[in-house]
């Protein structure tokens, strides 16, 4: 009886308490994030730049993740062309528009977005766990004690290296996708190699390609920023590291989708 009453009053209060609590949590996290962001941008724009760390990160982020990204994205390209062919044949009874549409989708969406998601899971999660472990084992404190700014030494090199890697990987990803789409078109849609390129050229502009790279750069900036933020805020323990990595991957995925929408919307004014 008493338990029932307590549960009842709790149930009445619960949503408000819960909402209030969550609101406070979100707003403190956001304010911490913006403090961190402004500090990072200031550090980024003031010398010195840690070139050696940057090169190391470029190797780890760019070179090491390129193969897996290109491998996975080739399947996405193949699936796209099959889907398009199916739809087009259904609606307009011809595959004439397929190369153009498929290439557009690759440049504008598939290339940058799938690359960003793969980078989030490959690079972002690793970066987060690494910084999180450094944070809870006091390595970050030890850096500060040796007069090294963790922002300059850890975050900025990762930030710049991920942006650059993301752009370069997307260029390769675009090329890989086109290649596989071409192969599929030649094999299944009776295109010749030149025929595919001609059909593609009717629809695509150079703008489609480089605006895709702008997206890649933005995603490349979002991923390390969020991963390192959660890394620095990791709580002690294996559970803490796990939670931090999950939060970082989810926040990154959500942010990438939202940024993709915002950029696509903004770019629509450029056509």
């Amino acid at each position, binding site marked *: 009886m008493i338990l029932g009453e307590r549960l009842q009053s709790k149930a009445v209060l619960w949503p408000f308490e819960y909402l209030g609590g969550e609101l406070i949590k979100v707003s403190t996290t956001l304010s911490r994030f913006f403090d961190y962001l402004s500090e990072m941008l200031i550090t980024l724009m003031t010398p010195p730049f840690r070139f050696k760390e940057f090169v190391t990160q470029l190797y780890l982020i760019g070179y090491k993740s390129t193969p897996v990204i290109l491998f996975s994205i080739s399947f996405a390209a193949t699936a796209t062309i099959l889907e398009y062919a199916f739809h087009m044949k259904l609606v307009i009874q011809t595959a004439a528009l397929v190369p153009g549409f498929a290439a557009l989708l690759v440049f504008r969406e598939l290339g940058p977005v799938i690359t960003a998601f793969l980078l989030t899971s490959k690079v972002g999660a690793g970066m987060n766990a690494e910084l999180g472990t450094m944070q809870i*084992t006091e390595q970050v404190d030890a850096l500060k004690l040796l007069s090294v700014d963790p922002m300059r030494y850890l975050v900025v090199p990762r930030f710049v290296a991920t942006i650059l890697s993301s752009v370069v990987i997307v260029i390769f990803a675009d090329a890989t996708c086109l290649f596989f789409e071409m192969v599929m078109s030649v094999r299944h849609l009776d295109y010749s190699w030149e025929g595919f390129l001609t059909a593609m050229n009717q629809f695509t502009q150079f703008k489609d390609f480089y605006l895709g790279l702008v997206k890649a750069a933005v995603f490349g900036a979002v991923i390390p920023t969020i991963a390192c933020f959660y890394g620095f805020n990791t709580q002690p323990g294996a559970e803490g590291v796990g939670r931090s990595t999950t939060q970082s991957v989810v926040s990154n995925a959500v942010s990438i989708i939202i940024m993709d929408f915002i950029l696509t919307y903004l770019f629509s004014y450029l056509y």
Partner: protein
Amino acid sequence: MLEVKNLTKRFGSQEVLKGISLAISEGEILFVLGRSGTGKSVLLKNIVGLLKPESGQILLEGREISKLSEEEYFEVRKMCGMVFQHPALFDSLTVYENVAFGLRRHFPGMTPEEVKKRVTECLDLVHLEGVEDKLPPQISYGMQKRVSLARTIAVEPRYLLFDEPTTGLDPVTTNAINRLISELSRKLNTTSIVVSHDMHCALEIADRIAVLDQGQLIALGTPSELLKSQVPLVKDFLAEITEEDRSRWLS
């Protein structure tokens, strides 16, 4: 001269330090004792600015440092070294690189030969050899702690904070490290604060001993003053000291 005045620190609703006041003069070795969780590590981290106190002052050679920005702290920290409770080695760098890390940063003019000489010297001081090329996860915990000690003393800071430098080490190494702390202060006039649970060693090498309990300083004095103390917790800490040792230290 390092002064801590009325320092308070809280985490949320938990008040960890409740008004600590201390003064340590040049070349002095101060031991800080206290039960687990009383805020010893928090005190050290406040002194070097890794945590910011809620109120109170920290004066390093007369300069108030507790309200400095992170940037300004980098200058101050060139004078201070801290050995953390965890080894806190950079685990992507080899043992050698860990010890050389601070040297390269603090003394950019050093030649590679000079760096190598100093690194070897510091590793010798903590009784380590032949591990230069290993990564931290490949050596034992006790070895990691000693590397961490070597990394800190390599840059010869004038103020040294040790957070349980000998916990978990074998008796031989423990003695060596305690001797090292004492020598640093005698030879280089280093000012040291040592958090420790090792009562014998505290009585042996400390100039003064502070006892912390629940965020407050309950005793502060020379080893012989402490031996005469009537504060219950202090007496508990001293319970393991035999009458024989007691009279030796008192005389």
